[in-house]
């Protein structure tokens, strides 16, 4: 289910966020958008921990994600450089794995209802 959520959310975010020429990917955008409300609720360290765990889990299937660095404030570094060196397929796989695992962790901890609620707060127009 989290992977379906993730796919659906990536499509939505890609559509509503800046054009593809922008150096930020949809996954980066999602992580950035979630960083603020989740950081506020869970603390920056709390969000960072979740993201780091999601990164480790996603790296098993998509190794290039290992190279990403999570900054102290919970933001990603190195996404732009990595994307430039990857083909579109690898990028999509990585994004899907990362967001899927992040949402998966949220579902594990706070359940699907609260996770969906949280996502709707950030993307009110998004429908599953």
């Amino acid at each position, binding site marked *: 289910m989290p992977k379906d959520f993730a796919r659906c959310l990536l499509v939505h975010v890609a559509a509503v966020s800046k054009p593809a020429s922008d150096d930020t990917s949809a996954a980066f955008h999602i992580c950035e958008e979630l960083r603020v409300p989740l950081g506020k*609720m869970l603390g920056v360290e709390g969000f960072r921990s979740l993201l780091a765990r999601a990164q480790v889990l996603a790296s098993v299937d998509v190794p290039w994600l290992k190279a990403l660095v999570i900054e102290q404030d919970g933001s990603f570094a190195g996404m732009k450089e990595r994307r430039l060196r990857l083909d579109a397929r690898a990028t999509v796989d990585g994004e899907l794995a990362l967001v899927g695992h992040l949402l998966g962790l949220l579902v594990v901890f706070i359940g699907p209802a609260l996770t969906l609620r949280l996502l709707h707060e950030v993307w009110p127009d998004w429908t599953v």
Partner: protein
Amino acid sequence: MKTKKAPVRRKTPAKLAAPEKVKIRQLPTGVRGLDEIMHGGLPEFSFNIIAGAPGCGKTTLAHQIIFANATPQKPAIYFTVLGEPAIKMLRYQQQYSFFDPAKLGKAVRFINLSHVVLEKDLGGVLEEITREVQASNPSIVVVDSFRTVVRKALGGESELALQAFIQRLALLLTSWEATTFLIGEYTEGEARDNPIFTVADGLFWLTQNAERNSVVRKLQLIKMRGQDAVPGLHTIRITGDGLQAFSRTLGMVGRKARPARTRRLSTGVPELDKMLGGGILEGDSVLVSGPSGTGKSALATHFLAEGLRKGEAGIAAIFEERPAGYAARARAFGLDLDKPQKNGMLELLYLRPLDLSVDETMQEILDAVKRIKAKRLVIDSLVGFEMALAPGFREDFRESLYRMIAALTGAGVTIFTTVEIEDSFTQMQFSHYTISFLTDDIIRLRYVEIDGQLRKIMVVIKMRGGNHSKDIREYVITDEGVVLIHPRQTEYTRLTTGLPERIGQLPPELAPEPKAKT
């Protein structure tokens, strides 16, 4: 000659003569029983502390309060500080029925202050709280745990700085019309000379004591400015619905005077009714005492079944037997307790968790009485009831029992209580509990040895508000239940000792006691 003028009386504007006092609005706590303890609810804009050791229910109490009051227009802010991570708090708290996911985000906002506490001084913490409060305009603010903030302060700042911080925080939150709760893990000794407790308007103290195999949780409202609250320790229980509080004075507040008692209720045993002068006076508390096997529960079942036959709903709080067994035994006497249960005329409350408080039991019974409008209540038995209580509550059993009986009879319910006692062959006890003063009527059952048989006798010891027979009557338990078989015995004396002496002539042939059908 000057005439003396009458003094001119100034008219005082009515408004000035009787200025209106400020009305303190009360907020619901969302905790069943707590509003009653607080005589209405939480004083709005008060600055409160919820203190206690870990596991007492402090966080759950705060959550119940915010979910009961927060709206998107007047939200609640829940600041978490280096305590339970918010993600786990959400994970656990959503298990409670009061947790409304729809309120999360807009009405209930969780904000983590850990990094601020770690990185900044008290001024920085206050600045962050101020920023969030000004941005959200909350009606309720919770800081969990405030103890962490204080620890941080004591690590690097003076006590005066801490006091100033608390003072400024209280001022800020009050000015922003927020009702505030600071949660902290404090021990009782820390309450003295602590600036936080000085500034606080309300102090909720939660305790948890493990006694033998049971856990007893208590709540005390140590301080409550601006309004009255029921003093003393109140039992609390945490269930799937969150905290529930049981006031120390449960049932006593708002108790109605017992109505004039004129109606007599049949016990379902015609000969016993005659001994009672026509039956039990409605609203009486009857105690039936006797050793095991003398038919106390059978009499109680007669009492219930007779009420049901007359359309009076009944409740049996049973502690020693399961409802199915209780109904099956009644069936053996030709009394049907199954159909009335299905019809909603009878509830068999099986209460035996071994860590109950009398207040919880009373609440269960009061709820059931209200639910089915019961007129008759059986408590079977007091010994089982006492065993079902946590050891700590057994000390207050008599006092609690007094409150319970007073509350229920005040509600017009007639109570039929059984108590098991051992037969002494030198004296005749009524009960081990010295609770005879709580009861209006006492019926004593006992064994006597007569002509080589262990027979059963019954006597009405006391009947408040009515005359009663002084006869000692023999009875048997047959397939019709309890049946009184002989008029009073005049052939024997010292029946109450259990070892009577024959003073009459020996009849030519003694008929043995009829046996119950199996």
